[in-house]
Each structure stands twice: as structure tokens, then as C-alpha cells.
């Protein structure tokens, strides 16, 4: 497993060289996303503002931001679960030309297929350490703040070696957590045994 400091704009070959389990820090511009942004753009057909178009790093997060007259203060930041956005994942990769998605809980098969086709990776945090990340993030601005509110509005961020995060989906279609799950499922059989649960035990159906 290697550690990469990726600096935007990313070269396609650098993204494709990443493999599940690699560690990555990110430098350059990114924007944040939750379902309200994707619903607005993909379901209600509103155009993503031009300022966002060249940015190819998306972070699933709901930050705490204090808004003052002359500045924004990022109070807390943590990547959030990506799988809830699976409905729009493939379109996001394709239509927003994404190369990197940062989020928790990995993503589903449709998004993984798009990531393989369009060369995009998914990165996950290995800790809950917002205070170690705050110094690596500067807020550049925001659009649709009034409509979406401070958690769901797409914040424009400047990242400076944010991370490290682990690659959990690579451009070959591999998923780190699918591999982890195989081990856990194997261990579960031993756990059943230690708890005296027969392998063929079937719970009584009550409804």
C-alpha cells in the first residue's frame, strides 16, 4: 500500500494507478454535496453553476459553518455516508466529470460501474478526527446557500493535503470493503460456533 499526495488537476493516469488500500491526501479545489444538491441538479434540472464545472473532487459531507458578515468559519468537518446518494452516484460521476469522491460507507454497484468507466475513485476516512482536518480546508465560497442551508449547500473548498483517506473503490472496480466483508463473514461462522448457534439455525418466522 502506497501513500500519495494528489494535487489537482489530477492526471488520469495518477487516478488509475490508485489501488484499494492506498492512502491519499488531497490538495486543490473541491465542492461539498448532499442529496439536496443532487436532487436540484438531476431531478429538477437546474444547472450546476459554472464555477463548479472544472472541479473534479466531490466530498459528501455536512459541515458546521458559522456565517459572519465578512467570512465563513468552518467549525467541524467529517465525510459522511455516501451510500445514501447511490441514486444519483453514476450521474454525478458522469455529468460532473468526477475523479475523486470522498465519503463514508463506500457506494453501490451502479456508481462503481460508472467509476470504472469514467476513471474515478472513492476515498473513505479511517478516523473521526475533524479537528485534525480543519487546518487543511479553506472555504472559498458557496452557492444556493439560502435555498439549501448551511449543511446542504455546495461549499467551494480549497484543500491543502487533506487526509489521509483510504482508497476503497478503485478504477478497476475493486471494493476494499467487499474484501473486508469476506473476512468478517468467515469469522462470523466461528462466532456462531463459539456462541452455540447451529450453522443451519433458521429463526422461526412470526409473520
Amino acid at each position, binding site marked *: 500500500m502506497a501513500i500519495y499526495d494528489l494535487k489537482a488537476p489530477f492526471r488520469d493516469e495518477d487516478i488509475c494507478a490508485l489501488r484499494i488500500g492506498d492512502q491519499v491526501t488531497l490538495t486543490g479545489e473541491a465542492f461539498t454535496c448532499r442529496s439536496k444538491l443532487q436532487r436540484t441538479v438531476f431531478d429538477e434540472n437546474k444547472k450546476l453553476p459554472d464555477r463548479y464545472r472544472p472541479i473534479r473532487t466531490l466530498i459528501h459531507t455536512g459541515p458546521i459553518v458559522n456565517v459572519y458578515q465578512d467570512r465563513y468559519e468552518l*467549525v467541524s468537518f467529517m465525510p459522511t455516508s455516501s*451510500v445514501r446518494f447511490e441514486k444519483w452516484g453514476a450521474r454525478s460521476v458522469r455529468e460532473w466529470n468526477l475523479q475523486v469522491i470522498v465519503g463514508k460507507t463506500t457506494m453501490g454497484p451502479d456508481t462503481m460501474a460508472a467509476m470504472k468507466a469514467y476513471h474515478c475513485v472513492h476515498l473513505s476516512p*479511517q478516523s*473521526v478526527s475533524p479537528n485534525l482536518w480543519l487546518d487543511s480546508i479553506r472555504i472559498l465560497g458557496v452557492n444556493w446557500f439560502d435555498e439549501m442551508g448551511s449543511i446542504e449547500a455546495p461549499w467551494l473548498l480549497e484543500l491543502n493535503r487533506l487526509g489521509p483517506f483510504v482508497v476503497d473503490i478503485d478504477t478497476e472496480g475493486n471494493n476494499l470493503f467487499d474484501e473486508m466483508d469476506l*473476512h468478517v463473514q468467515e469469522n462470523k461462522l466461528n*462466532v456462531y460456533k463459539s456462541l452455540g448457534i447451529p450453522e443451519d*439455525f433458521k429463526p*422461526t418466522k412470526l409473520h
Partner: protein
Amino acid sequence: MIQQSTLRQAIDQAIVRGATWISEDVLAALEKAQSIETNPSSKKGLDQTIRSLYLSRDRQVPACPDTGWPLFFFKIGNEALLEGGLTALKTLTQEAVAAATARGILRRTMKHPLTGYDPGNNIGENIPWITTQFVPGDEIQVTYAAKGGGSEVFGGAQSRMVAFADGLTGIRKFIIDAYTAATRAGAICPPSILGVGIGGTANISADLAKEAACLRLIGSRHPEAAFHELEVTLKDAINQLGIGTMGAGGKTSVLAVHVEYAYTHIAGISVSISSNCFVARRGTCCVHADNTLEVRENPNWFGGR
């Protein structure tokens, strides 16, 4: 008589501690897990998390941006008198949540479930949610528990009716299967504090599980031997699964298993799990009858545990 302004201060303190402060029992469990971990990813993840948690305490900023559903647990003394009466609990908690949200101590997390409308202050129908219990004495104690979306939404909270025919085997299998599924890809931020509720109606077991996860101290034990044995065997078993920190693999997959129970109907056994993420937060503050405040580490919700 307890003044409303004093109780409001206690609620404010409970919220601040509940959002920014990690209790000693949780920190000790995380540090122990970090010290024995051999998986590099999990060891590093625990180390970074612990460092961040100390910074949250120092800076008084949220330990995680998901400051959760605003849940309050009140222990009300049988002889406690509150200025204006106990209906003030609702308005005082609402005011305190709105003020903490405006300060950035709580995130603007609560939405209308159908429209997604954001009131901007975490106040809405049935939110904040208040649970009360009446105890001997003349004081009022409030606990704020930050029950995060990660631990609640992605499988960390599940229920099942188990037949008496399946008994303990059915109960154990449901818990192991449910927890394993919920921790895949680090969904519920493991290693969690796993609360288990057994018996009662579905909502009773779910409440017991949530309170066991959020309000009991790590290291506490159920006083009845059969339930303590269940806590120990489940904890040991889950820690053999190799889930680790944020699903990265490792020795510690659960920090604690807390089981609570209620007698149940002969027709079946409701079993619920409720997981609290490893950044488990709770803040407790008591108002004595003389209007002095006391911050407490232990909510002592289950009478001695």
C-alpha cells in the same frame, strides 16, 4: 424551588458537554483499544480520533459535525419543584437547543421528514425528544445524548421479534447478524457501544437499547448474572469478527455491550439493538434544590449503572 433560569443553565451545560466532550470512560476504552491494536489502519484511526477528541475538549467545538437528534433524558426528583411547573421542560429544552445551534455547538440537522424543510434551529414537531423518569429526592438531572445519524440510520438501530421457541440462540443470532451488517464499510462508525433491549413491546425494547447504548458507562455491568453473561459473551464474540475501527479490520469491533430487559408477553420476545458511534457523547448536569449545579460523568440512568 428550582428556578427555570438555573435549569436552563444545566441544559446548556449538558448540550455543550454532550456535543464537545468525551467522557472519561469512553476515552479510556478508546485508549485501551488503541494500545492493543495491531492492525495499522485501525491503530492509526484510533490515534487520530483520540487526538481530535482532546482538541474538541480544549476548543469546545463539536467532536463530530453530526451532533445528532437532540435527545434529553431527565431524572426528576419526586419532591423537586420547578418554577412554573414541569411543562417548562419543553420550552427550556427548545430554547437551549436553538441557542446552541446558533452558536455552532449543534449542527442544523433536524429537517421536516416529508419536505426536507430546515427550520434552522433544530426545533420541530416532537423534537427535541424528552424522556423522563421519576426518582426519590428533590433535584432535577438532565442528560443530553448526541445520537448521530451514522449510528442510527445505517443499520445500527434494528428490531426483531424472536419466538420463545428460538430463545437465547435466536436472540444472539439476530444481534450478531444485525451488528455485522451495520458495521460493513464502517457505516455506523465502529467500534460502537452496542445497546441491546430484550422484552416488552417493540418500542420498549428499542428505548431500552438506545438508553443502554447512550447512558450507561463503559465498564458497567448488568446486576443479574444471566444478562451480565450475555453482555460478556456478546462482546467477546463480536471482537472476534475483525471489523475494527471504521471497518478497517482489527481487534476491537465493539467497545462495550450493554443489555437491558423488560418482562415480555408469552407470544414473543422483542429484541432491539441500538449502536452509539465510538465518538460516543453524553453530557449530564444536575440542579440541586438550592439551585446549585453539578456536572456529572455518570447519568446513573439504570439505578447503579
